[in-house]
């Protein structure tokens, strides 16, 4: 291979360098290669091997340096981080606000049911009379249900069953209702080793001659499915926004990259 052809090959390989680097050093690099060919101190085979190895190493290094300089500019990174932070806050809000609205909405109509039943019991009705006849399977039904407990938290009457039994909330719930009059909780009844579905429960204090508690509950299965859907949408929105920020940052970095080495 003639020296001119080798130099032509080397000149074509130089096109692989970043534009700014090439603009600054293409001429001197070609001259250095030409000088090496003309000098003859290195045999052509050895020179070619050196040039190929040098191209492989320095191409990677210069492209990485250029990418670091282009996309690692503090202002660019700072802007991207600020945007990513805003996107994250927005996505959290996109999840948290509907989640709260859905969760609070899951307490309807239990609030009214618990208030009405507590009022009836306080006016002297017995649990057997006040609690409507019916049997809701807590594990499967979405229908609201009522349970009456005595002052020690023992069930006195119920329209719902879980595995054939009436479950009882943790004692802490009753303590809190004693202190505050009402408690709205997400309750997951556990009977033996069986974990029930999660229940949106409203517990109210019954005062009067026979104090106790009423619990109005409803399965949160559907509400939780909707919350999961909202979570997925918020997650996808977050990923989409992060993707746009990355694409925008890369595009802006590329457009405003240094065009020449000065």
């Amino acid at each position, binding site marked *: 291979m003639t020296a001119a052809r080798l130099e032509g090959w080397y000149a074509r390989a130089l096109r692989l360098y970043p534009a700014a680097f090439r603009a*600054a050093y293409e001429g*001197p690099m070609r001259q250095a290669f030409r*000088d090496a060919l003309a000098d003859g101190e290195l045999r052509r085979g050895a020179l070619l091997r*050196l040039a190929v190895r040098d191209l492989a190493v320095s191409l990677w290094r210069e492209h990485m340096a250029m990418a670091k300089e282009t996309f690692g500019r503090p202002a660019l990174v700072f802007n991207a981080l600020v945007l990513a932070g805003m996107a994250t806050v927005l996505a959290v809000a996109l999840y948290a606000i509907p989640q709260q609205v859905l969760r609070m909405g899951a307490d309807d109509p239990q609030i009214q049911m618990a208030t009405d039943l507590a009022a009836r019991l306080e006016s002297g009705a017995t649990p057997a009379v006040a609690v409507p006849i019916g049997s809701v399977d807590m594990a499967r039904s979405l229908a609201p249900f009522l349970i009456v407990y005595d002052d020690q938290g023992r069930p006195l009457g119920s329209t719902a069953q879980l595995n054939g039994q009436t479950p009882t909330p943790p004692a802490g719930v009753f303590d809190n209702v004693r202190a505050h009059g009402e408690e709205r909780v997400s309750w997951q009844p556990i009977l033996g080793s069986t974990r029930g579905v999660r229940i949106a429960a409203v517990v109210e204090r019954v005062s009067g001659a026979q104090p106790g508690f009423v619990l109005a509950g409803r399965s949160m299965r559907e509400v939780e499915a909707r919350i999961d859907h909202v979570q997925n949408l918020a997650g996808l929105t977050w990923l989409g926004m992060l993707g746009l920020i990355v694409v925008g940052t890369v595009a802006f970095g590329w457009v405003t990259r240094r065009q020449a080495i000065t």
Partner: protein
Amino acid sequence: MTSDVGSGSGPLTAAVFAILLALAGGDKHGYAVMKEARTPEGGGVPMGPGTLYGTLDRLTRDGMVEESGVSDDERRRYYRLTALGRKALAAELERMDAAVRAARGLGLLAGGRG
């Protein structure tokens, strides 16, 4: 571009050392630096034009080297060592000298004990 020439408190890279050493003898153009760097006295670092000019670019940014001129046809670019580059080279040579003295002391090099 950010610097990766090893010009901080740590040792210099082989290419940087060889380039600074070559320029310590006076202004040189690219191929002259490459040629001298390849010799055992110049560091024994075979480097191609890509490594040479990439390293020179970073050394110029770091203020260790500066362009001293171009040939009439502007194809050869000459470089010279700055005071900062000379200081970095001296620090590296002192580090090497200490290592060599330690090696001699351990009898790993001729002229040492044993």
